């Protein structure tokens, strides 16, 4: 950018401590303006708002083989782990400042509070954060459009800005001031307001002076609302102290450039006092450690759950590149084209003409607000309208790819000692697992029940906690612990694992830091992605169980919701029944894991109703899938019995009865439904007799009767054998048949009873004998007699029996 050095070196402000450049964290135009500014001023020292004790990391940040996005991670080395993440993208002004200093042999240094003080402050600021949230309601919702337009040129009046590095420390309540300002200027949200007013203007000094005014405006606004946050004042006093230290070390003030969040820029002057030694000594500190970690654009975007205010990292990287090429106008066509190309890759064609119209619409939308160029919001809306044909869902995925991107930062080997590794060590120690961290395979068996022989609760449930920890590692695919299957009938308190440490495990552990700073947080995040990716009811039910095993109650709730959602979308009977049964198991055996399953009961109720409603439709399946349906019916029936107080069992029985009476469903399943009802004593003998005779009446297709009978007998034959009237009915029926009909009936009766064992057949004989007045022996002798030759003959003729005659 040597060609830009022609403009005069900006003068130091009258009361200035040094040159101050206010920025927004992750602002491409800020980075661009900053580099120009640095080129003009040629400072000897560059001071950056950032953890004071992180100076030693600067050489690693600027190394050519370090690839942003990366982050400085500060964490307490004791539980509960508090962390601070300070991410850099390529287009972060702070990162570019470090790069500039490196290239121009200037000294770079961080000047914000050191991490130990920050982490101690974090605790208290979290507690104070919930107060101001209601303020937004007070803002006048009806703002005249013209007024909104005017205020675009007066951002000083109503502006405020995120201070740069400390998004984690800014309590969420302050967001309400931002959205209020966005509203006042007629923008939909603060990000759009910022982008429209700050990111598109390349006039020299516009950014720095604008941000300075913005910061002052914000401070006035907060003053007027009594929302001054003590933490900010402490930080600013400390920063002034640090600047003065640098000046007294002999660097002239005009050779220092200070880069801070716009919010802090106005007060880094000689008018305000610097922190004294006593004040510094009085600050509370928490022992802390610092490291660099690779970061990802996904994590940087708000989609990952961080409020860190950069919704569209990849989009801003495109903007940074466009700024580098001095071609910001190309950003809009780039954006729409890229989205369209993504869409085409996935098989949806949109023409170049549509892209052109999209760019045009985005420019008109921006012109409507007096903007210089379309903002991300304008581009999104234009893309949805033209490329998505009005539907957001069509382009949502392509938009995310272009906005968020998939970039993952890279650090050279050995630089990162992350908090998750520390956390892992600590957990191992507290769970007395350290000795298992060897390359030798070791078995570990756990008894999850309370150990009543020890004193503390922590020791009593040691194995339970170990189990949760190992399950979490397993979920994170850290190859340290492998579960070994063991069989335990009707109890779930034993678990077996094989433990073995390997370098691969170390690597996957370090990689997991991208998911979260501790094992628990990482597991929670991983779990969330798995839930989002899961598409069937039984998978979701398994995840619910997994959350229970990992002792992650928040995730459990997520999984429960997902399960409920999926169950509604697709009430596939077998899956729903399996899910209901899985949940029922968790509720019944949850207490071994100290888990209260009651919150799951409403879901079991829902699933039970859905299962009952879906039964009839499912029963239309073929014989091959009937077996699965049998199993599912059993499961659901068992759930009904286990939770008969909670679930609507009568609905289930009603649906079973309808199914049992139905002629248009698979007769096997109809029969099976009847068998379940028989077992629960919900069909009396008379009804049963009626149904048998109906099923077996002449003129009815063989399958309907035989299949039904097969279904009935597939369940509990003893319940069947104990029903004398059934056999009487059967016998009467056989007697009533004429020769031809008998031949036919014989075929399917033989099929129905084919699966009965000899003992069961004998029982049938007894039943029949009773009704014929003969004793059992006579009857069975009659039946078990070898067949005569004639009879053999007629039986084999039956093999060619042609049912078409009927």
């Amino acid at each position, binding site marked *: 950018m040597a060609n830009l050095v022609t403009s005069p070196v900006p003068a130091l402000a009258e009361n200035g401590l040094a040159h101050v450049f206010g920025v927004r964290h992750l602002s491409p135009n800020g980075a661009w303006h900053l580099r120009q500014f640095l080129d003009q001023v040629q400072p000897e020292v560059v001071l950056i708002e950032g953890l004071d004790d992180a100076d030693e990391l600067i050489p690693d940040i600027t190394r050519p083989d370090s690839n942003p996005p990366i982050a400085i991670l500060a964490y307490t080395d004791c539980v509960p782990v508090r962390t601070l993440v300070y991410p850099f993208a390529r287009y972060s002004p702070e990162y570019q400042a470090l790069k500039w200093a490196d290239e121009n042999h200037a000294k770079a240094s961080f000047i914000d509070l050191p991490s130990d003080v920050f982490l101690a402050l974090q605790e208290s600021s979290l507690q104070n954060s919930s107060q101001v949230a209601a303020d937004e309601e007070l803002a006048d919702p009806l*703002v*005249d459009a013209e007024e909104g337009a005017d205020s675009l040129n007066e951002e000083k009046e109503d502006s405020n800005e995120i201070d740069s590095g400390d998004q984690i420390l800014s309590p969420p309540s302050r967001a309400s001031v931002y959205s209020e300002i966005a509203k006042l200027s007629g923008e939909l949200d603060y990000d759009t307001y910022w982008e429209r007013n700050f990111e598109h203007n390349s006039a020299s000094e516009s950014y720095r002076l604008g941000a300075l005014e913005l910061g002052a405006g914000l401070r006035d606004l907060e003053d007027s609302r009594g929302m001054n946050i003590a933490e900010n004042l402490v930080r600013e006093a400390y920063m002034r102290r640090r600047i003065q230290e640098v000046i007294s070390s002999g660097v002239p003030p005009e050779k220092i450039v200070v880069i801070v969040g716009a919010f802090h820029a106005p007060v880094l002057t000689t008018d305000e006092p610097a922190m004294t030694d006593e004040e510094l000594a009085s600050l509370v500190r928490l022992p802390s450690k610092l490291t660099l970690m690779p970061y990802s654009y996904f994590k940087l975007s708000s989609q990952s759950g961080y409020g860190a205010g950069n919704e569209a990292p990849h989009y801003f990287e495109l903007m940074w590149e466009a700024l580098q090429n001095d071609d910001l106008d190309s950003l809009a066509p780039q954006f729409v084209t890229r989205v369209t190309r993504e869409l085409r890759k996935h098989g949806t064609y949109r023409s170049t003409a549509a892209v052109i119209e999209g760019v045009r619409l985005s420019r008109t939308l921006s012109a409507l607000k007096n903007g210089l160029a379309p903002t991300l919001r304008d581009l999104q809306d234009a893309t949805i309208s033209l490329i998505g044909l009005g539907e957001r869902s069509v382009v949502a995925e392509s938009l995310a790819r272009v906005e968020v991107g998939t970039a993952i930062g890279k650090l050279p080997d050995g630089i990162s000692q992350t908090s998750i590794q520390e956390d892992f060590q600590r957990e191992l120690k507290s769970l007395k697992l350290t000795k298992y961290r060897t390359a030798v395979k070791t078995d570990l068996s756990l008894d999850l029940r309370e150990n009543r022989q020890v004193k503390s609760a922590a020791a009593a449930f040691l194995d339970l906690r170990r189990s949760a920890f190992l399950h979490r590692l397993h979920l994170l695919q850290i190859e340290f612990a492998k579960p070994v299957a063991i069989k335990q009938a009707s109890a779930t308190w034993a678990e077996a694992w094989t433990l073995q440490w390997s370098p691969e495990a170390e690597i996957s552990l370090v990689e997991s830091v991208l998911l979260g700073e501790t094992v628990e947080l990482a597991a929670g995040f991983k779990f969330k992605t798995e839930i989002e990716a899961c598409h069937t009811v039984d998978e979701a039910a398994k995840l619910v169980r997994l959350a229970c095993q990992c002792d992650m109650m928040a995730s459990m709730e997520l999984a429960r919701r997902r399960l409920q959602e999926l169950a*509604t979308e697709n009430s596939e009977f077998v899956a729903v029944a399996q899910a209901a049964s899985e949940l029922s198991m968790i509720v019944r055996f949850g207490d071994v894991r100290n888990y209260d399953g009651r919150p799951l009961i409403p879901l079991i109720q829902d699933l039970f109703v859905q299962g009952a409603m879906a039964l009839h439709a499912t029963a239309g399946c073929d014989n091959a899938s009937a077996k699965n349906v049998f199993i599912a019916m059993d499961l659901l029936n068992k759930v009904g019995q286990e939770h008969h107080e909670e679930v609507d069992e009568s609905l289930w029985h009603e649906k079973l009865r309808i199914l049992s009476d139905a002629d248009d469903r698979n007769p096997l399943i109809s029969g099976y439904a009847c068998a379940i009802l028989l077992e629960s004593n919900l069909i009396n003998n008379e009804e049963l007799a009626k149904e048998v005779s109906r099923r077996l009446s002449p003129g009815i297709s063989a399958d309907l009767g035989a299949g039904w009978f097969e279904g009935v007998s597939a369940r509990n034959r003893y319940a069947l054998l104990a029903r004398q009237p059934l056999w009487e009915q059967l016998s009467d029926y056989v007697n009533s048949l004429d020769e031809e009909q008998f031949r036919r009936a014989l075929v399917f009766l033989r099929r129905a009873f084919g699966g009965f064992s000899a003992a069961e057949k004998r029982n049938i004989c007894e039943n029949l004998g009773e009704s014929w007045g003969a004793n059992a022996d006579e009857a069975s002798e009659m039946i078990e007699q070898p067949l005569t030759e004639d009879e053999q003959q007629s039986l084999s003729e039956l093999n060619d029996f042609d049912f078409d005659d009927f």
Partner: protein
Amino acid sequence: MAKKKAATSTKTKDESKVLRQPAEVMFAEEIDALIKADKFDRPSGWKMSPRSVLTYICGGKCGSMDIQPKYIGHQRLVEIAISTLITDRALLLIGEPGTAKSWLSEHLTAAINGDSSKVVQGTAGTTEEQIRYTWNYAMLIAKGPSNEALIKSPIFRAMEEGSIARFEEITRCASEVQDAMISLLSEKRISVPELEKEVPAEKGFSLIATANTRDRGVNDMSAALTRRFNIVVLPSPNEIETEIDIVSTRVREMASNLELQSELPSQDSIEKVVTIFRELRLGQTLDGKNKVKTPSGVLSTAEAISLLTNSMALAGNFGTSVVADADLAAGLQGAVVKNEEKDSIVWAEYLKNVMKKRGAAWRPLFDACQEHNG
């Protein structure tokens, strides 16, 4: 060209007797005030600047005058719609029935041109002549083709004047009729071969079409035609309060219009009906905790209104003249269960899994619905 005659004849009639005034007459005061106070550039052919149009539609202040909001809730969509019309592109408003598509298109044209009457109503019987031009046949036979014998369609006239025409329910028209629009929109000129002339559109000409999501697949718009539109999808009301407001107001109006012999349904029943409609329409409970299946019907706000007025008619003529839960249940059954087999399962699941758990306040309605769904 009945539309044309209707439009001109309203002007001659005594205005107080007209059943429904067009928007530009109803809100003439507001439009005048906005035009007077306007200090921004106007695109050619427009009566006011885009910003003033936005104020007119979404409400706000104009000097000391309060501008009533005409379309509530989705200001961004209105911004997109207006921006589209600035760029000489045609605008297509898509939405479920009853999402104020025609309402918005009427007010847009009223504000932009002060004339919302250039309308083509798309039906299965719309012919190509109705969107281009036709002839006064007596004159045509007597004198041959001449300018006097030419009857211009609303779109033709809009092109001549450089104003905006409206095409309602474009997807109801047969594809060949829709296709006639393609050349009009891309060439921006209409040719009359009989008179050997071509009429180019003046600056300011554009088209606002509306289409119904539920008609998808009936006469789907061709890709070539879709390409010529910027598409804005109008959603159902965002907030339940807004929807309850709309429903109560409209029910009150209709009850007095139709002289129904019944008391107005209580606020409580309106809330319940709107809640049920929203939950089934959105496929989840209001608190977002449970998903529910959606039935095949639309369940629009408009349908909730007609359900409630129906229940009033039921109660007034055959009941106690107070809208009881049984009256509502009958209506709900009819509204939700459009397809016997599928929807009745959806409805039964909703009743059991959602409504039953709502406690005592919902109990009577639940019982009544349960009985109806047998």
